[in-house]
């Protein structure tokens, strides 16, 4: 039996730990790892990056002004008749109105090289409108989720940290919000203002989403509150505020981030449902409203609804995939118990 050389501790080569490298290297390595281990999540992130790009540079990427109404030559137009009508207006009364208008709206054209996805029911370029519609989905989705997470975290921490009556009251309020049928609560809040604006819709969605966030944060804080470092902080005489936001909050960031990312898709869907029902911001181009316009065109022209709905599906899918992958990386315990509201 040959004697194996003894490794003297501390002399062999130890590669520098990742945590000793500069943050930019760390971020790059971790991103690479994320894409390698979670290809579906990586796909989601890629689509989101693309979406953000499209939303920011919508004015560069659209091929036409989304509000521009296209017209095509009218096949019924009769130039001779129109000429005569200039001298003798009474001719107009004898013939169809169509004979006198040289062009008509380019309604519901099929896809072509000029209009990649065709035109909508008002003769506007569908592709350009879908590009612009991405802004609404993105702003509402991220805004509402951010609001719900911010408010929900504060309430959740306070509720769990103080316990007792404060906890009891807050939990009952959260119960009441969750007992409300969410879509109806949303409609009520939106109807309080005469014309719904994008901000109002975002805020309303965020409020509806607060209760489930409170639940998740509260249960995590209940466990964290018993940790030794919290007891240590209490012993050192730290104030309640300091303990809650300097000691507890940083330690529950993982579930908070997870709830934030996994909820965005749900809010995008909810905004689409609202504008589908006709309660969206009337001044904005929204995918939900476009699906409804496509629906009203009937079975002969299903393409407008098809394309727009597909856009919603892809975007929501991307956010769900990215959110789920991030959850697996950050906090696998949260599987199944998502803080999502369903609308």
């Amino acid at each position, binding site marked *: 039996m040959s004697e194996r050389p003894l490794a003297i501790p501390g002399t062999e080569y130890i590669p520098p730990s990742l945590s000793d490298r500069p943050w930019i290297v760390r971020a790059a390595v971790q991103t690479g790892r994320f894409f390698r281990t979670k290809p579906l999540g990586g796909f989601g992130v890629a689509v989101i990056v693309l979406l953000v790009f499209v939303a920011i540079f919508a004015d560069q990427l659209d091929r036409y002004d989304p509000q521009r109404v296209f017209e095509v030559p009218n096949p019924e137009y009769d130039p001779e008749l129109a000429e005569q009508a200039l001298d003798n207006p009474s001719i107009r009364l004898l013939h169809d109105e169509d004979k006198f208008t040289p062009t008509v709206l380019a309604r519901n054209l099929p896809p072509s090289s000029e209009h990649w996805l065709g035109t909508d029911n008002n003769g506007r370029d569908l592709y350009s409108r879908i590009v612009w519609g991405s802004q609404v989905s993105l702003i509402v989705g991220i805004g509402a989720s951010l609001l719900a997470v911010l408010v929900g975290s504060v309430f959740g921490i306070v509720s769990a940290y103080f316990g007792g009556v404060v906890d009891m009251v807050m939990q*009952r*309020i959260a*119960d*009441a919000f*969750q*007992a*409300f*049928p*969410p*879509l*109806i609560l949303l*409609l*009520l*809040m939106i*109807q*309080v*203002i*005469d014309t719904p604006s994008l901000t109002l819709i975002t805020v309303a969605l965020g409020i509806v989403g607060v209760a489930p966030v409170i639940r998740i944060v509260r249960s995590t804080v209940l466990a964290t509150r018993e940790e030794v470092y919290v007891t240590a902080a209490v012993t050192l005489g730290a104030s309640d505020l300091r303990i809650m936001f300097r000691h507890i909050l940083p330690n529950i960031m993982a579930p908070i981030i997870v709830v934030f990312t996994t909820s965005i*898709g749900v809010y995008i*869907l909810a905004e*689409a*449902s609202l504008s*589908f*029902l006709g309660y969206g911001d009337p001044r904005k181009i929204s995918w*939900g409203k476009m*699906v409804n316009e*496509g*629906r009203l065109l*009937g*079975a*002969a022209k*299903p393409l407008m*609804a*098809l394309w*727009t*709905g597909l856009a*919603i*599906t*892809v975007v*929501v*899918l991307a956010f*769900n*995939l990215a959110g789920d992958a991030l959850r697996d990386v950050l906090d696998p315990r949260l*599987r*199944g118990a998502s803080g999502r509201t*369903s*609308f």
Partner: protein
Amino acid sequence: MRTYVIRRALINIPVIWLVCTMVFFAANVLPGDFVAQRIALQNPISDNPQLQEQQLNAIRKQLGLDKPILERYVLYLRDLLRGDLGESYETRRPAIEGFIEGLPYTIQLSVMVLIIAVITSIPIGVISAIRQDTIIDYVLRVIAITALAAPNFWVATMLLLYIVRYDLWTVELTRHPLLWEDPVASFKLFIIPAIAGGLATGATVMRLLRSTMLEVLRQDYIRTAWAKGLRERVVVMRHALKNALIPVVTVIGLSVATLISGNVVFEYIFNIPGVGNRVLRAINARDVPVLQAFVLLLATSVVFVNLAVDLLYGVLDPRIRYS
């Protein structure tokens, strides 16, 4: 057990009171009240603004809207305690009548959605789990996450448009028979939203079932079952599935609550005169008593469905004790 049920039921009382209060104040601050919107339009009264105001006030008085809001709130709570949910401004009939008329449609739709969700998700979830990381598993999972991402109103719309386009069957959007009135026509109409809703609910259930099945399949008693030489079907169905179903029952139970709200969109697309469509109409018409009554009844049902789901745990898993 009994004290647990009583305590849970009592906790629900302040929750329901909060819901009533919220909906009362939300509904009463909605801009444009019913009187001005509807009645003034129907009988265009005098052009004289003073006279107009007088007539409006007379109607407000008739509806009890002339009192200050706090007094109305107290009266509302008093009537509630007497079991009176108020009467519709529009039809002058008790608000609860409209709810009862709409309920069969909403229940039929919800039950159909649930049936489709269960019959699609349970076999798919089980297959996906026992064939983990195979092609079948990947395909089923991709279908599930896509079904979860697709907006339900869009799926319903596309189904409707393509069924009509390829003339698969005639969908009548003007008549809404219930299953026991005209089974064939009813099925033809309701099956479309049921599929659209069932896929989304089913996808949630399938994903959850898959992950709990995977967990259960690694348990010792499953290994024992295999070691005893039981057939795969017995191990999977009797030993694994039965235990994996507990969290699934929660999700299905909780989705019963959201179904009623989620059905608003389907009832809107298919013109079904269910509860959801009536709520939309009450919001648009500012018919405050109807709105209050419907939200109260829906919230109460949600709260008690949740309680029922919790109690069902104990039946499914005798280890769970209530205290």
